[in-house]
């Protein structure tokens, strides 16, 4: 029999139901994998005792035939989700040692459905980054290294901010993981590591108990090994929550059932503005290949235009820092987390925040403070929200002509740790294809569809209408079968 850690979430669930192996056996294999993969720095906290304890309960449920939808599946949880009694830091020094006295709604949904937690996963500090290098716990190393022997010692980034989630699922030390996505933080790391990641429509998953970055953009979602696994997990994660006033009161569809059926007659939009300057030729031809596969499966390819695409990043770097500067005001050394003493309260605040926040987080708080400050608010913040309205409008116009949009997920394959660090704007450009989706609040899925010339995974992104995750997943499933991506990272458990 294949190693248990090689099974997808769906396969493991079938195996558990058929009693081919027990929850404890599966969990123990993952705990061993976790130890083997420590060099990747994917986990910030490991919780094997909690996992094994929960595994016992799951076993009883299987024995009594009252297993829940995710019974006994060992997941990794991005360290942005508050987990009761388990250290939650958002990978920031300012929250080191913080043990929430409550559980985030999304993780609670997962536990209520029978999943168990292997540990907390590394991320860019407060989810601000595209490489996982801004974490206070140090960078995550991708299990991928490419085929160029000259690069064998080059350590690659797993993408970010959900870099620990991507590395762990890809290296087989978690069966699947949760992520969060503010500007591409689920989709870009999924693309860099050969995985599937979906950012659902804004309002689909509750944000309650997830450390806030930019509240009008943040969404929770799964990172998994295939589209079906994403459908299974999303169904449990999603749902209305009275504790998040922006969570939407809409029934959660059966996403696995939505994978059934073909895509005959479905219109797939190709936005011409996504052919950006400097994009490698291979990404473009890879994108064309993806469109061809969908056409062969019966879809109709239509050209669409999203004219304000080029402004999306500039809008994002006003809106996200503005919201972050406001959300992160709570870290003041008084109620939780780090406290650095000072003469008087003002100095205590200033010292705590100077020492507790890393460089990128400080930079974004300063930008946010500036664009919201008296005299600049209209020129920057209001202007950005107006251009954001144009971007959202572009998408609603486009969806009159098509049912789903196909784009590359990122403008390149994974880069090495240390690259792109000299210039923040260069790093931010990584999110050029994912950021517009957050600005418009739409669902977006990334799936692996091939390898670059350097032997690294490349992802394609599917964007859907609001709350139409079903179409996005169905098209994703069709593209997944057509592309037949089977590559494994050189390093895995």
């Amino acid at each position, binding site marked *: 029999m294949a190693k248990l850690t090689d099974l997808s979430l769906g396969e493991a669930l079938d195996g558990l139901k058929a009693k081919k192996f027990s929850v404890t056996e599966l969990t123990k294999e993952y705990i061993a994998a976790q130890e083997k993969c420590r060099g990747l720095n994917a986990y910030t906290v490991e919780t094997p005792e909690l996992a094994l304890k929960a595994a016992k309960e799951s076993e009883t449920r299987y024995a009594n035939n009252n297993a829940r939808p995710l019974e006994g599946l060992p997941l990794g949880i991005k360290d942005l989700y508050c987990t009761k009694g388990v250290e939650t830091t958002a990978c920031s020094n300012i929250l080191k040692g913080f043990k929430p*006295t409550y559980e985030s709604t999304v993780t609670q949904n997962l536990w209520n459905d029978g999943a168990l937690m292997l540990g907390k996963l590394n991320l860019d500090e407060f989810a601000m980054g595209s490489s996982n290098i801004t974490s206070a716990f140090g960078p995550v190393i991708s299990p991928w290294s490419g085929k160029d022997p000259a690069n064998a010692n080059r350590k690659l980034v797993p993408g970010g901010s959900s870099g620990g989630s991507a590395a762990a699922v890809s290296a087989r030390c978690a069966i699947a993981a949760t992520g969060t996505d503010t500007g591409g933080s689920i989709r870009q790391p999924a693309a860099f590591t050969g995985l599937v990641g979906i950012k659902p429509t804004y309002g689909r998953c509750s944000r309650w108990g997830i450390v806030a970055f930019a509240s009008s953009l943040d969404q929770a979602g799964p990172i998994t090994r295939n589209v079906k696994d994403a459908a299974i997990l999303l169904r449990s994660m999603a749902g209305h929550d*009275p504790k998040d006033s922006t969570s939407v009161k809409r029934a959660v569809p059966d996403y696995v059932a939505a994978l059934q059926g073909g895509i005959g007659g479905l219109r797939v939009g190709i936005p011409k503005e996504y052919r950006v300057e400097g994009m490698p030729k291979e990404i473009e031809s890879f994108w064309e290949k993806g469109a061809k596969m969908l056409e062969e499966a019966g879809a109709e390819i239509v050209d669409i235009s999203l004219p304000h695409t*080029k402004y999306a990043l500039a809008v994002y770097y006003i809106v996200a820092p503005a919201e972050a500067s406001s959300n992160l005001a709570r870290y003041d050394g008084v109620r939780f987390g780090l406290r650095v003493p000072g003469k008087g309260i003002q100095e205590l605040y*200033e010292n705590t925040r100077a020492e507790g926040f890393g460089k990128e987080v400080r930079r974004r708080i300063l930008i946010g403070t500036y664009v919201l400050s008296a005299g600049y608010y209209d020129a920057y913040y209001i202007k950005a929200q107006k251009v954001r309205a144009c971007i959202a409008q572009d998408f609603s116009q486009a969806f009159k002509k098509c049912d789903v949009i196909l784009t590359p997920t990122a403008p390149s394959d994974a880069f090495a740790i240390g690259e792109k660090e000299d210039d923040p*704007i260069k790093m931010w450009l990584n999110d050029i294809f994912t950021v517009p989706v957050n*600005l418009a609040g739409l669902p977006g899925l990334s799936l692996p569809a091939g390898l670059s010339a350097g032997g690294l995974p490349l992802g394609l992104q599917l964007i859907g209408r609001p709350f139409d995750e079903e179409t996005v997943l169905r098209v994703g499933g069709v593209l997944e079968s057509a592309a037949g991506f089977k590559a494994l990272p050189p390093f895995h458990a």
Partner: protein
Amino acid sequence: MTIDKALVSRIASLARIRVPEEEKETLSKELDSIMGWISQLNEVDTSNVAPLTSVVETALPMREDKVTDGNNAEGVLANAPKEAAGFFVVPKVVE
């Protein structure tokens, strides 16, 4: 608009983040270049566009004005860097 050292000091003070004097020069250049890049938004004519306030087209839900959570001082104080007698402790604020 250029972000000079004086403006950096003002922003840092508003953000309650101490910025050492020697970092202000670099930071002003960095922020200035970022804001310069952002000013491309001025190319977009938005004279007839209302600013986006929410991507979800629903009204905020109302609920009964009733306490739903509380009486949990212990939980609230559990992570306090310093607490005494059920309160957060901070340096003296009023002279």
